[in-house]
């Protein structure tokens, strides 16, 4: 059996999306900035895409900027708020400890330029307390940026409430919704969101295209300077095929949120219950405030990479930590942020189901994980120390998950 269960890393482009993109490679290939027909046709499709995306998010077309992906959107949101803030002497930004690196590394770059960064706690359950955001807001706070759903443990944050606080305190609020947009109903107006990032490849669209929403009135700064595309705020000939792909994929994803959640919720429950049977394991992140596709566990006594490589041999594609840090030896900053000690953080597994996951697949995943864990533990000196009592367990042998 082959099960791709790393949809939080990226997804396959759907056939419908590929078909929708094809004409924009070879037929409507004109530059949308060109005045002749094949250019204007491209321009029309570009603006129609913008309208569709805006409608889905509850925004105005003028508030939608197409970017090269989630990372660029995050960078541009933060840099824009930082530049505008700095002009008014506001050089403080609030974020959280378990943001994606596209946010955290941008904030680090700003720190070098004299910004002060406050990272709020994400607690053991991986859910931020809005009160802590409220307490962290200062006179000189230029931006609050909090992700909508975490990419590793899938926990959903109280975004509307954080947005409400920011509105009240007149601080701009950005949310990285890359992992949430296809799982949660999002409306920027109703949820008090000033800026929002999404990325097509997380919901069966192509890689290399994303969206930044910025509420009208908030000044947008360029990350990429040059031509007058995107109202002068994002230079570069528009990737129209990609933008069409994003739009079609987004329409599909959002239209099916409820159906997908209904299908996935019992599978998620089955997966969690199944993996909990493995002794000395624990679910990472809140059981309920999480996207229905995500299950993330820590297992004592084993290391994540060997776990996932052996699962790969069994046809199960999953990850340990997030994809973009898998070259690194550091344990996941997300798991450390929710208080997992290093030695357990090394033994983590992220499963992110696709919408077409089946019970059979879930059972196969459970069986495979259990087998591999047992095998790896059979010659792990760390595990030996744990069961012999030479080292102390972090987890209970079994934990009921309600």
């Amino acid at each position, binding site marked *: 059996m082959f099960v791709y269960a790393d949809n939080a890393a990226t997804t396959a482009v759907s056939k419908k999306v590929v078909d929708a993109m094809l004409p924009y490679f070879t037929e409507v290939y004109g530059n949308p900035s060109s005045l002749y027909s094949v250019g204007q046709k491209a321009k029309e499709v570009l603006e129609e895409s913008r309208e569709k995306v805006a409608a889905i998010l509850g925004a105005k077309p003028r508030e939608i900027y197409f970017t090269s992906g989630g990372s660029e959107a995050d960078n541009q949101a933060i840099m824009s708020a930082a530049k505008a803030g700095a002009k008014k002497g506001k050089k403080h930004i609030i974020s959280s400890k378990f943001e994606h690196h596209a946010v955290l590394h941008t904030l680090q770059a700003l720190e070098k330029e004299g910004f002060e960064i406050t990272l709020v706690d994400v607690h053991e359950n991986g859910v931020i307390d809005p009160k802590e955001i409220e307490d962290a807001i200062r006179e000189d706070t230029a931006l609050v940026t909090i992700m909508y759903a975490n990419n590793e443990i899938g926990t959903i944050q109280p975004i509307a409430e954080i947005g409400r606080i920011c509105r009240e305190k007149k601080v701009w609020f950005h949310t990285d919704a890359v992992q949430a947009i296809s799982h949660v109903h999002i409306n920027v107006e109703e949820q008090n969101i000033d800026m929002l990032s999404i990325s097509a490849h997380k919901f069966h669209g192509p890689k290399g295209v994303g969206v930044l929403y910025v509420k009208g009135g908030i000044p947008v700064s360029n990350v990429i300077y040059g031509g007058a595309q995107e109202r002068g705020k994002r230079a570069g000939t528009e990737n129209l095929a990609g933008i069409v792909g994003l739009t079609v994929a987004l329409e599909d994803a959002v239209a099916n949120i409820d159906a997908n959640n209904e299908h996935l919720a019992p599978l998620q429950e089955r997966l969690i219950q199944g993996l909990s049977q493995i002794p000395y394991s624990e679910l990472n992140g809140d059981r309920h405030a999480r996207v229905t596709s995500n299950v993330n566990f820590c297992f004592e006594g084993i290391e994540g990479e060997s776990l996932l490589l*052996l699962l790969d041999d069994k046809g199960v594609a999953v990850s340990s930590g997030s994809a973009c840090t898998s070259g690194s030896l550091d344990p996941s900053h997300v798991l450390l942020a929710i208080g997992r*000690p290093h*030695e357990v953080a090394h033994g983590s597994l992220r499963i992110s189901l696709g919408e077409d996951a089946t019970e059979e697949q879930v059972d196969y995943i459970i069986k495979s994980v259990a087998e591999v864990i047992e095998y790896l533990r059979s*010659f792990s000196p760390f595990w*030996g120390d744990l069961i012999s009592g030479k080292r102390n367990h972090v987890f209970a042998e079994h934990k009921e998950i309600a």
Partner: protein
Amino acid sequence: MALYSEKVMDHFRNPRNVGVIEDADGVGEVGNPVCGDIMKIYLKINDQQIIDDVKFETFGCGSAIASSSMATELIMGKPVSEALQLTNKAVTEALDGLPPHKLHCSVLAEEAIKSAVKDYYDKNDIEYDPADFPEEHDCEACHVN
């Protein structure tokens, strides 16, 4: 271009000499769980100071397991003095290379064997040159400490 060479994958998937030697003459353990890898080497050494048997246990990533496996193969049946000469470079080469950020796994393997030999020397009051047993590397590689 793949993550690991075929050799590494082979030793990872089918590790040689896995297990414990209950009445080992020398046991060495290096690494720690905080860094994400621990290697434990068991040596059975005969009167001629030949390694009659070697087994390992490893907690760690694919290349840690493969490095342990390869290291045990490289010293099996060899005189202890020769095992002491085993370098991380030899382990890496025998594995057809390791990714740069995984080289420390081969270092761990070298250290684990040295540590087991030292244990054997200590237990049997055999004199040795301390220069052969450098300090264990610190936890730099995993940035935690």
